[in-house]
């Protein structure tokens, strides 16, 4: 399959590129696009600074020299960008941007654009879903699904799996941990897509759309998370959350503050 990693920065796309390259089953390309139609010049300055300052600069430069990076000067839904995407004849896009995609953009990919969302669909759509799951005593996890133009409303869910975050000492750490799993989840989702074992799970919108959480509930969710954090011996723990299937940390977790995550929060 011909896969495009859609990202706002090159270092941000690299972990996914490297993870998928290990599978050696796909033709990969990175598409760098501006955050919005108004941020072109600012984005370029950021790209250059990142390329020069980040530890992955040599890998980024190597990727550029191989011609594996396509840079869009206009927003993804701009006619020129759409034309360029069509010419690339892509099968699947992997969301790693801060953008919201319009239908015209989605249609430029034969199968669609995948999103790794840090919530278990169909129950948890929208923002702060990890925090909401913790607050409400529900399992936390990641769902990989084909997006549509709504907010986490895409019907076709490829993979939806619980992830244990009880080893994390804060909500920020837990979120960063889930973000770091995006490359792994994308690789597994693509493997399922390429196999005959895929059983679509339908996003029937039976869950709720969540919104950014208040400081009050955020602090409460953190407190609840810490009830399950492994404490030094002799100290008690709170009620158990039903997290299961802990996934090993990604071998190349995203550096802190590395662009936007492909995992929607």
């Amino acid at each position, binding site marked *: 399959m011909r896969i495009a990693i859609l990202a706002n920065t090159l270092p941000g796309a690299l972990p996914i590129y490297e993870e998928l390259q290990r599978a050696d089953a796909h033709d990969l390309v990175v598409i760098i696009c501006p955050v919005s139609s108004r941020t072109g010049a600012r984005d370029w300055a950021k790209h250059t600074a990142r390329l020069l300052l980040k530890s992955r600069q040599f890998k980024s430069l190597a990727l550029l020299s191989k011609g594996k990076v396509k840079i869009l000067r206009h927003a993804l839904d701009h006619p020129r960008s759409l034309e360029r995407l069509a010419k690339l004849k892509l099968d699947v896009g992997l969301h790693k941007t801060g953008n919201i995609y319009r239908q015209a953009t989605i249609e430029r990919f034969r199968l669609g654009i995948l999103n790794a969302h840090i919530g278990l669909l169909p129950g948890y759509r929208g923002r702060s879903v990890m925090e909401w799951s913790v*607050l*409400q*005593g529900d399992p936390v996890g990641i769902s990989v699904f084909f997006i549509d133009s709504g907010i986490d409303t895409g019907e076709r869910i490829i993979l939806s799996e619980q992830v244990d975050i009880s080893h994390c000492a804060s909500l920020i750490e837990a979120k960063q941990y889930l973000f770091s799993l995006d490359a792994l989840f994308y690789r597994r989702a693509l493997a399922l897509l390429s196999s005959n074992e895929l059983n679509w799970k339908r996003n029937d919108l039976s869950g*709720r*759309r*969540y*919104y*950014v*959480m*208040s*400081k*009050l*509930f955020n*602090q*409460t969710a953190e*407190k*609840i998370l810490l*009830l399950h954090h492994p404490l030094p011996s002799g100290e008690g723990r*709170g*009620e158990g959350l039903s997290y299961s299937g802990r996934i090993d940390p990604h071998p190349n977790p995203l550096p802190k503050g590395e662009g936007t995550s492909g995992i929607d929060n």
Partner: protein
Amino acid sequence: MSAREDAIRDALKRRLSDVRNRLAGLTPEAFGDAADYLKRLQQSFSSENPSGNDSAPVPARNGGNDCVAALCAISLTSAPIDSTIQSADAEQFLESLKQCRNDSEKRFRLLAERFSWPPTFSLSSEAEIREHVLMRTMVHDRARIEERSIAGVDADDLLLKLNLVAVHSLETDDLRFLDALNYYYELLPTDWVPRARHVSLVVSFLGLYARALHVRILRNQTIAHCDTREHSARSAADI
């Protein structure tokens, strides 16, 4: 009670105390026509009566209710409120609401007319309208305020929506609605007296928010009580 419910209840108790203090600290004179109403609300949440004035008469509902006046009246009582009036076609109304997304005055008028008796906002027939109101409040209005300032939104429109969300929070277990109030309580300036046609809405927002917090705390305590009884019964059976 589970440690999780306990943590939520503690947070809500702290917040309720904070809201009551904020209400008590408001200067009635700054609120013009709403000064008397604010004084009554302050009295209702005074330290002698922390949960609100149960003896306040239950507001009457009738065909000619004024939404803003009804919100003020509801904020002054903790007695159960009737919400059985059926409203006209919700789907058509939602469409009208979506069409006036750039006309805040019209949106205010539409909402105030439909929910002239605000508890009807909690009817099951209004579910999609509630979702729409919550979404507009937590996405569009929030973004405008955070990117620009509170002056970037129509205060009447925003506050009416928050009041309706608060009325629904009195009825529902869905914490998203209560958290929208939490969020705006943290976002809005503490001494904000809006330049609005209905300045009383900022006061009723605080009053209804306090009631919603109180109701949720009581509900958590009821869960705890049931848990304890169930636990005792189970223990006895085990023996």
